[in-house]
């Protein structure tokens, strides 16, 4: 419990910073929506853009002149930011002890390494959940003036669940990197590199028919906003893949961290 609380405190600053960034993003996004809202001219202009570009930006799935459509387009930012924040939290919470050389203190205390990992990952998990709730709350405030209907609220709820799922995947991957990497200083940047790679894979897989198989390797495709919007739910297969990634990463993280030498 003491490790958990200390980690929550230590990570509070980072949570606040990420929340401010995403709040600004939502505010700016919502303000910009006023230019799109119910404007048929905008639709025409969008239609005149090259289809490949629209695909790349996932803009064909949505009617940008409706709030839900606009929020569908916003989702990728939530997903990306959630992924990066979660991966950083996951890897940093373990690797910082070696980076700051505090392992010689924290792991000489009478606690098992598994208990340390558990407390830390729970603290990071709280951050992830808080980040989603803050995104959700700020969104509700930001779109209030557009009088959103129930359909929008349902879609927003679905998007937030998807955002949390993406966070959990990258939290687990980040944790694994933090626990396993000998080059502990690089665990955070490696996590971000994985996120960007999988993000670009998700774009490419949407653009090229023959690269469609890539969709199984990128969590951003598991929770594609267009699909979420069309079906109104998260795909079962993808949820299963996500759960597998999370479980395998977490088990591997514990297993490796318990057995390896700490780098001092």
């Amino acid at each position, binding site marked *: 419990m*003491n490790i958990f609380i200390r980690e929550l405190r*230590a990570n509070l600053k980072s949570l606040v910073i990420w929340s401010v960034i995403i709040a600004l993003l939502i505010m700016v996004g919502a303000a910009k929506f006023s230019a799109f809202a119910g404007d048929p001219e905008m639709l025409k202009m969008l239609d005149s853009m090259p289809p490949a570009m629209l695909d790349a930006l996932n803009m064909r799935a949505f009617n940008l002149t409706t709030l839900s459509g606009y929020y569908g387009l916003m989702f990728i930012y939530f997903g990306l930011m959630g992924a990066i924040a979660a991966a950083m939290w996951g890897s940093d919470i373990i690797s910082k002890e070696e980076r700051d050389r*505090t392992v*010689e*203190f924290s*792991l*000489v*205390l*009478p606690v098992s390494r598994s208990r340390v990992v558990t407390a830390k990952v729970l603290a990071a998990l709280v951050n992830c959940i808080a980040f989603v709730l803050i995104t959700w709350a700020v969104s509700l405030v930001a779109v209030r003036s557009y009088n959103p209907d129930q359909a929008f609220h349902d879609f927003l709820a679905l998007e937030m669940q998807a955002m949390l799922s993406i966070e959990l995947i990258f939290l687990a991957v980040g944790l694994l990197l933090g626990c396993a990497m000998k080059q502990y200083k690089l665990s955070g940047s490696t996590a971000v590199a994985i996120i960007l790679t999988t993000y670009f894979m998700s774009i490419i897989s949407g653009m090229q028919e023959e690269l469609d198989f890539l969709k199984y390797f990128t969590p951003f495709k598991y929770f594609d906003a267009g699909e979420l919007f069309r079906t109104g739910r998260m795909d079962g297969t993808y949820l299963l893949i996500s759960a597998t990634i999370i479980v395998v990463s977490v088990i591997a993280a514990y297993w490796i961290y318990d057995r390896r030498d700490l780098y*001092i």
Partner: protein
Amino acid sequence: MSVIEVTNLTKYYGKARGIVNVSCSVEEGEIFGFIGPNGAGKSTTIRLLLSLIHPTSGSAKVFGKDVVTHGPEIRRDIGYLPSEVYYYEGMKVIDLLKYSASFYDCDCTQRMHELTATMELELNRRISDLSYGNKKKVGIVQGLLHSPKLLFLDEPTSGLDPLMQRKFFDLIRAENARGVTVFFSSHILGEVQRLCTRVGIIRDGSIAEISDIRTLQQNNYKKVRVTAEGLTPASFDLPGVTNVQTENGTVHFFFKGDINAVLQKVSGIQVTDVTIEEPTLEEIFMHYYE
């Protein structure tokens, strides 16, 4: 009872040598000095005993329990002062100490205040604002506040001024008097000599010698210095004499063997001064490293 029992402990970092086939045991209530130059494997040995790293082969037991499988249990009764102390920079000293204390089943508040008073530590400062020496003091208090039964000190005096060093040694002696076993690693021989009952000398990852400080000094050579008229180095041409030097009519040399042989030689000379000394640990130590 042996508090620490190390059997053929070996650690390689990839291909780099840590320690090779180290065996030793430390008895309850003793202060065991562990000496060797930088890179000999002192810290590696301690980190293995604290299960911060895992052995390549061999085994080690602390309080009769295997360090790999019973780490957390063993560490309940261990205090550790690393050679360089690092704590969470953003925390205040008092919060750090309370945090540390919260892991042990004891009310350590009173002892914490005693120790901080002894070490003249300011509790309300941030760790990041502390000097190296002051961080070391935090380390001392943190390592001792839960009244551990076994103390690991890894080059503990670096960064402490002489006054603090003395207080620190007094503190360690007081702990030892209460029955605490101390594993004292250092390359400063003077302090080992002052504090320890037994020493292990480690060189290039292997134990070169383990013995009682007294025996180490007695069974070793003596330092002999003779001042007399017309002495030459040839005057002491005996088996066991080494390192003969002459200056201003004084001959000094090291001698190992039956001291009566030297005394007989000396008795035949009209001397103005004679001293026969035990070598310092420093000199013995250099002998192991030649």
